């Protein structure tokens, strides 16, 4: 090995603290990119594969009842590839050893075999056998939630009739990757399950012999779905069709896509911020490391090493550091991405996860890190080789110092000499000090970015469940029901207050934009549901017209006073124009609201309701549930408290885990930057500090010169970090406003305090580590050698 390469390795060993710190900065940037892109890629890839392997349908439609013979007409619709008619039945279940009500959905499969579309993936056991009337396959999350295995039995109530069914197998379906009950926002595997049963058995139990109430179909390659949907709606309208829709409106696919969109945003924004910050820091850090070696560059030049030799030497040094950092980042990134994808798999049920590391992502990450390091190195090496060697070897002439305003001020008179040294050092090297402040500030900004969502999420959920949804139980009926049902409910055990609502599935359209949602019709001054504006003030429901969440109004491009087309997706389908009366700001969901009577008029019906909100005494819940269970019209019973905790868990598991990773990375960067800064400050000042020791200053006094400078830089950096971090957070927040959640842009004082505490802690740790070096500072040797 050439001696100059040996020098390289020894330098790396000698500088290992700093090299490690720089490698951490690189690793964090690379890791962020790899995590984001790889997680996204893993979920997309897994989704694509499952959809393909299971022949996931393109178009879906529910209807009341149509004769099986109609299938021929469906097949003949131009553009249709394969069609499958099914029977789908809402059921209630009793699960052994589980107290609470469980809802379910049974879907038919051809007798004894796999369906053509939406094929099931068998995790365990087998599909119901041909000719058997008492067998079902159940969805995997439901089986796990209740510990149900093949061979166990379930009691199912179909149209009021109790059936005891045997579980033959545990399956996964592309329709229920995200297994969501009707009207739920989040999966509840205990209270909602999906079952598959032989078509003849189900049709018989559900009164659908020779008929179907659900169709799924695939399209030929290159065919647009809209004309097919229109044809389907025309054909099935007379049979109670409630509007065909594409995959975009299929609940599982919708939520999966939304999650992927969110990940996609994070995969662009977070790594961009991270890589940009680490690139900047890398540039600064590499520059400083090489500047300390200015003397060595001069010596090597004096002996005939050329500028090219020096460029190669330091290029290699940088390259090795980048390599170490990138390898670390790639390894840790792949590991974290794998773990994070596994968390997503908890919510999105796929047969298996496809996971791959894309070389181009690694190359991109390494390329950015390498380029940033190269620029920093090149500038410093150029600075070192540009000087004639004799000049580079000479100790630099004493720098210009003068008294700044601080020292001339009255406050200045109070400064002791060491403090004066600090102030002058910083004011003399304004550019360098500025870079240090910016570097530390950026790491504080990353800390803020990584932590602000924790506060914002709490705020969002608090608003939703304290100000918007004030009920504690949420009942949905199977069909529109007369208002008198409210009176029945009022006398049930533990019920304190009851309020009815009318919920209508609609498609809202304005110009080229449309959106499928529901209009919630409620009392003019609802007691259990709050409509709020952006400042959390209560909004009155106008007697007529539509109230939209501001997110939805933005999506449709409408403002109060504009009209939207409301396509009613229930009963007799019609489209009517309705004026937008107001907008509201709620953080979760994309609903539209109307006064209930106005909605009833729009539906051309009497004062009907489709559900109620209850305020109850939790102590009497078991009795209440028993009674509710006996009401045939009750389709679902939702416990808001459960929903709230489910939503918290969901966000904690997905977004916040991501943020926690980010936070760890931000913390590492903060420490790396502060520590490096401290090391370099020490190297630059060692001689001066040794001189002061010789002159009789105590260790504590000279330590103050160094530590005081570091602390001062950190204190200056904190507001910079707050400012930049707020900008980063705003950027992320804007980009991450999704259909389901809109995080309020809220940075709590605690978040600011946390970011500040993070860099202060990093400073404290660095000071401890540097203190060790200060204690070993050898006065004589530091003065003897010019280094």
């Amino acid at each position, binding site marked *: 090995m*050439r*001696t*100059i390469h*040996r*020098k390289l390795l*020894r*330098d790396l060993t*000698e500088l290992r603290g700093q090299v490690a710190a720089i490698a951490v900065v690189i690793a964090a940037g690379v890791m962020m990119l790899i995590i984001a892109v790889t997680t996204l890629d893993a979920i997309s890839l897994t989704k694509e594969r499952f959809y393909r392997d299971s022949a996931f349908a393109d178009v879906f439609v529910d209807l009341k009842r149509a004769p099986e013979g109609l299938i021929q007409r469906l097949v003949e619709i131009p553009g249709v590839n394969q069609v499958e008619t099914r029977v789908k039945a809402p059921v209630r279940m009793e699960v052994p050893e589980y107290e609470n009500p469980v809802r379910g959905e049974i879907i038919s499969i051809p007798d004894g075999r796999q369906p053509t579309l939406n094929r099931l993936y068998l995790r365990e056991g087998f599909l119901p056998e041909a000719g058997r009337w008492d067998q079902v396959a159940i969805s995997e999350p439901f089986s796990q939630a209740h510990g149900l295995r093949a061979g166990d039995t379930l009691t199912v109530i179909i149209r009021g009739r109790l059936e005891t069914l045997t579980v033959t197998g545990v399956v996964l379906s592309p329709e229920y990757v995200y297994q969501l009950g009707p009207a739920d926002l989040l999966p509840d595997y205990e209270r909602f399950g999906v079952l598959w049963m032989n078509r003849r058995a189900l049709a018989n139990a559900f009164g659908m012999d020779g008929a179907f109430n659900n169709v799924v179909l695939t399209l030929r390659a290159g065919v647009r779905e809209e004309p097919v949907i229109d044809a389907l709606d025309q054909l099935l309208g007379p049979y109670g069709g409630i509007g065909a829709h594409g995959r975009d409106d299929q609940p599982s696919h919708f939520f999966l896509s939304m999650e992927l969109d969110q990940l996609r945003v994070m995969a662009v924004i977070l790594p961009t911020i991270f890589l940009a910050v680490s690139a900047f820091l890398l540039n600064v850090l590499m520059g400083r490391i090489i500047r300390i070696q200015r*003397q*060595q560059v*001069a*010596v*090597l*030049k*004096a*002996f*005939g*090493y*050329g*500028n090219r*030799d020096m460029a190669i030497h330091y290029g290699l040094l940088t390259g090795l550091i980048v390599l170490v950092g990138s390898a670390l980042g790639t390894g840790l990134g792949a590991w974290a991405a794998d773990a994070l994808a596994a968390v997503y798999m908890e919510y999105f049920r796929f047969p298996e996860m496809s996971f791959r590391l894309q070389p181009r992502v690694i190359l991109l990450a390494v390329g950015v890190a390498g380029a940033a390091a190269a620029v920093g190195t090149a500038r410093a090496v150029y600075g070192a080789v540009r000087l*004639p*060697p*004799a*000049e580079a*070897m000479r100790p630099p*002439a*004493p720098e*210009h110092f003068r008294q700044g305003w601080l020292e001339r001020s009255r406050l200045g008179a109070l400064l002791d000499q060491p403090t004066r040294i600090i102030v002058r050092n910083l004011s003399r090297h304004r550019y360098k000090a500025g870079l240090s402040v910016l570097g530390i500030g950026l790491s504080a900004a990353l800390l803020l970015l990584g932590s602000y969502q924790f506060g914002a999420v709490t705020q969002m959920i608090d608003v939703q469940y304290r100000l918007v949804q004030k009920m504690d139980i949420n009942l949905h009926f199977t069909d529109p029901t007369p208002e008198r049902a409210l009176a029945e409910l009022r006398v049930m055990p533990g019920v304190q207050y009851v309020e009815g609502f009318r919920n209508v599935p609609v498609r809202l359209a304005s110009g080229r934009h449309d959106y499928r949602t529901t209009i919630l019709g409620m009392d003019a001054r609802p007691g259990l549901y709050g409509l709020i504006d952006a400042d959390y003030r209560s909004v009155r429901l106008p007697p007529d017209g539509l109230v939209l969440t501001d997110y939805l109004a933005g999506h449709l491009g409408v403002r109060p006073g504009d009209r939207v087309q409301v396509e009613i997706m229930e009963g007799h389908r019609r489209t009517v124009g309705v004026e937008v009366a107001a907008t509201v700001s709620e953080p979760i969901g994309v609903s539209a609201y109307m006064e209930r009577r106005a909605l009833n008029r729009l539906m051309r019906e009497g004062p009907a309701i489709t559900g109620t909100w209850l305020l109850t005494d939790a102590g009497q819940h078991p009795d209440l549930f028993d009674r509710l269970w006996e009401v045939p019209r009750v389709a679902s019973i939702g416990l808001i408290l459960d929903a709230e905790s489910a939503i918290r868990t969901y966000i904690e598991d997905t977004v916040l885990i991501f943020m926690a990773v980010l936070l760890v990375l931000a913390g590492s960067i903060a420490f790396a930057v502060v520590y490096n800064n401290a090391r370099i400050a020490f190297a630059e000042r060692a001689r001066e500090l040794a001189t002061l020791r010789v002159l009789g200053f105590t260790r504590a006094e000279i330590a103050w010169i160094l530590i005081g400078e570091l602390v001062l830089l950190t204190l200056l950096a904190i507001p910079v970090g707050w400012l930049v971090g707020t900008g980063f957070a705003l950027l992320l927040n804007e980009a991450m406003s999704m259909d389901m959640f809109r995080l309020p842009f809220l940075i709590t004082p605690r978040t600011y305090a946390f970011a500040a505490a993070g860099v202060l802690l990093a400073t404290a740790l660095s000071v401890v580590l540097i203190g060790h070096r200060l204690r070993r500072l050898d006065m004589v040797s530091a003065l*003897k*050698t*010019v*280094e």
Partner: protein
Amino acid sequence: MDAGMEVRGQGGRQVVFATRGLTKVYLTGDVEIHALRGVDMELYAGELTVMLGASGSGKSTLLNILGGLDSATDGQVLYGEQDLVRAGDRVLTAFRRDHVGFVFQFYNLISSLTARENVAIVTEISRNPMTPEDALALVGLEKRMDHFPSQLSGGEQQRVAIARAIAKQPAVLLCDEPTGALDSKTGVQVLEAIEHVNRELDTTTAVITHNVVIAEMADRVIRLSDGLVSDVHVNERRRPPSELSW
């Protein structure tokens, strides 16, 4: 580049270096320092020259310019027939690599390399080097070759620096206050190493110092003051360094 071996000075001796009207002006902060104000001098082949001057006389500047470590403001430095003042960075780098050896007051060893490696880092890029081992043996350090600079005394470090400077078998050896950081006894050992190299390898050697005693070991003494050559004196006899003390 070849040192023009045909250039002859007074007495027919071969001239290795010649300067003509050499000036150097520094800007240190706001202060203009006239380090050299028109120096004319020669160095002859195989000769050991001591350049004597007080602090600030310009002797280090002169040495740095001769060695291609620094640029001149005006005048000529002829190495053979090549004018170093007008040479570009590539020419100067090649000149340093192949023709000059340096010894600095503060040794300037690379602390992460052992004695042997500090020499090897130079021999590896030279055209016709001796081995690092031979070079270190010449300065009497054959037993300390694998020590790091921090494990060597000041005198030993300076001898490593001399070994490093002569290992490439340079045409000229330039020493800037080589004993400046050493005590008298150690300084003598270092001077002996320089003298030994000059005698054994016939390397043209220039030593700058402010120490008048050292002048006695030279063939010729050039005195500098205020950026000018004030006197050139030829010693009748070179005194061996072992006889010197200060």
